[in-house]
């Protein structure tokens, strides 16, 4: 099923809608948001200069710092009384990022998420358990409204109390699970500890995962525990742009379809800011063209991807973004080498004898960075050689993938921290040591 006819338009029709909406948005922010007017004046560009979609490149970028500098409502294009909801992202440093919605924005958001849920296989018959934390975070309410709009039954179980989650899942016959990939794996662990046979006692057939990177290795791990027939799709969004609903995978798992009538994606060189030619890999920049409260122009997501415009087998014509390798700000620089945690995860999940939970610890000894990876040993053994061979298998693969030597620390099962929301698997202790 395809939810909206806007997902199957010809390229020329999509572009026509995009240009109209872009021009309207740019005029509006220039009129109503002093910070945008200043940015555009400084860049020497007027709303009238946007005559084609290519002219988008003339507009200045918006960054997370802009949102912080204008905290809380400085970039909003509507008066506060027109807002019906605000959300905020958990800022790791300083002030959080605040986002707002008018009534129409909530409708738009709902529409976007409904499309993504349908792409991921959801139907009105589904019993959808939402295991994202409710609250200021956009993930839970976003999926909640989208799935409810579709007609699915919502179980707003949030995070925490995993035993009860499994009980609901069993008793309500939950068919659709919304969670971060790491929490979905944790829930499977809890089900096993409770003696619940996931493949026999539970009916979960769809997992809509988000808010955290879904590597292919993690998807395989999801299939291992939730069953081969469980359709595991990732979806993408961020609160600054709206929340979940910017893009999502269809059953062909060939990148995430972007809701292009609401968002214009571009790929830039993150160093120079230049727009890269079609098909190139680079930083994703998104312009919101159908938002009233917070229509961000050329927002730098810091996510690295590639855009694909070929028509998908599912029938949708919307552009797809390749699944992410990681965020530029999750990237670790270790001994001068760029390391994405996803690369390490890929290696770990393809190694026998160890579990899917891990921790990456980076320290500095003298002038050299040390990379340590802690993983749980699942396979019981009486043989040192076996422990050594697991260790050297991981080391050798990491050396090929990263070109770096790492220390591998095997630990007992259940000793690495589990997460209910976005997993924090990296401990970079280099700055804290004040070297």
């Amino acid at each position: 099923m395809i939810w909206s006819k806007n997902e199957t338009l010809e390229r020329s029709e999509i572009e026509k809608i995009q240009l109209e909406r872009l021009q309207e948005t740019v005029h509006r922010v220039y009129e109503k948001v002093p910070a945008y007017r200043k940015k555009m004046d400084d860049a020497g560009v007027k709303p009238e200069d946007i005559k084609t979609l290519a002219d988008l490149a003339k507009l200045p970028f918006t960054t997370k710092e802009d949102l912080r500098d204008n905290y809380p409502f400085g970039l909003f294009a509507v008066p506060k009384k027109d807002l019906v909801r605000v959300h905020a992202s958990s800022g790791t440093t300083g002030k959080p990022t605040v986002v707002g919605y008018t009534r129409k924005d909530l409708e738009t958001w709902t529409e976007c998420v409904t499309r993504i849920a349908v792409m991921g296989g959801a139907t009105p018959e589904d019993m959808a358990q939402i295991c994202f934390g409710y609250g200021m975070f956009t993930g839970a309410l976003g999926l909640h409204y989208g799935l409810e709009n579709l007609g699915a039954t919502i179980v707003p179980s949030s995070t925490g109390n995993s035993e009860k989650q499994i009980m609901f899942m069993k008793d309500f016959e939950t068919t659709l699970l919304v969670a971060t990939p790491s929490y979905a794996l944790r829930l499977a662990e809890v089900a096993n500890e409770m003696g619940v046979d996931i493949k026999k006692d539970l009916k979960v057939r769809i997992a809509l995962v988000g808010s955290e990177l879904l590597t292919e290795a993690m998807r395989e791990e999801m299939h291992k525990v939730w069953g081969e027939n469980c359709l595991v799709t990732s979806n993408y969004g961020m609160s600054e742009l709206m929340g979940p609903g910017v893009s999502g995978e269809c059953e062909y798992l060939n990148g995430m379809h972007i809701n292009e009538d609401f968002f214009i994606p571009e790929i830039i060189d993150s160093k120079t800011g230049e727009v890269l030619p079609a098909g190139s890999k680079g930083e994703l920049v998104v312009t919101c063209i159908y938002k009233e409260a917070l229509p961000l122009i050329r927002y730098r997501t810091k996510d690295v991807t590639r855009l694909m415009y070929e028509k998908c087998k599912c029938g949708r014509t919307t552009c797809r973004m390749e699944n992410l390798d990681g965020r530029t700000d999750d990237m670790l620089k270790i001994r001068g080498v760029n390391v994405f945690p996803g690369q390490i995860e890929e290696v770990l999940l393809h190694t026998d004898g160890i579990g899917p939970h891990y921790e990456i610890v980076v320290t500095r000894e003298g002038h050299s960075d040390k990379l340590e990876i802690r993983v749980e040993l699942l396979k019981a053994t009486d043989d040192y050689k076996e422990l050594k061979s697991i260790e050297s298998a991981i080391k050798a693969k990491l050396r090929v993938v990263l070109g770096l030597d790492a220390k591998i620390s095997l630990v007992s099962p259940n000793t690495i921290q589990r997460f209910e929301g976005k997993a924090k698997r990296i401990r970079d202790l280099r700055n804290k040591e004040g070297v």
Partner: protein
Amino acid sequence: MQAKQLSVFIENREGRLDEVLAVIKAANVNILSLSLADTSEYGLLRLIVSDPAAADAALKASGFSSMLTDVLVVRLMNKVGSLQAFLSDLAKTEINLEYMYGLTIEKEGKASLVIKASDLAKASEILLKAGAELLTAEDIAKL
């Protein structure tokens, strides 16, 4: 004539050995012998206990990687050269001795040794032929 040894993986972290011993104690299982071989990062704890299956189940339930391993437990005579006599018979074969450690010393002065070899069936055959006394799981439970 084989006995069961409990093998437990422990990472080298303070208190980890204590935790293992506490779990075994809580399962009401008696420890007869223990050998801890370790590197700087982790260790393998090998134990001869009164009820290996119960201890293994308790450890697994507490989240440890543990397993049962077949070993030979040889009772040695209190006599000079008795250990060497057995081992030299084994040495003449293809059988590879992987590790050994001592068990309890009994009242009568007899000592027992835990032996892990590449071919336990053959090793026990040779040892028995040489007149060794091998302890079974039942014997060990009674120690």
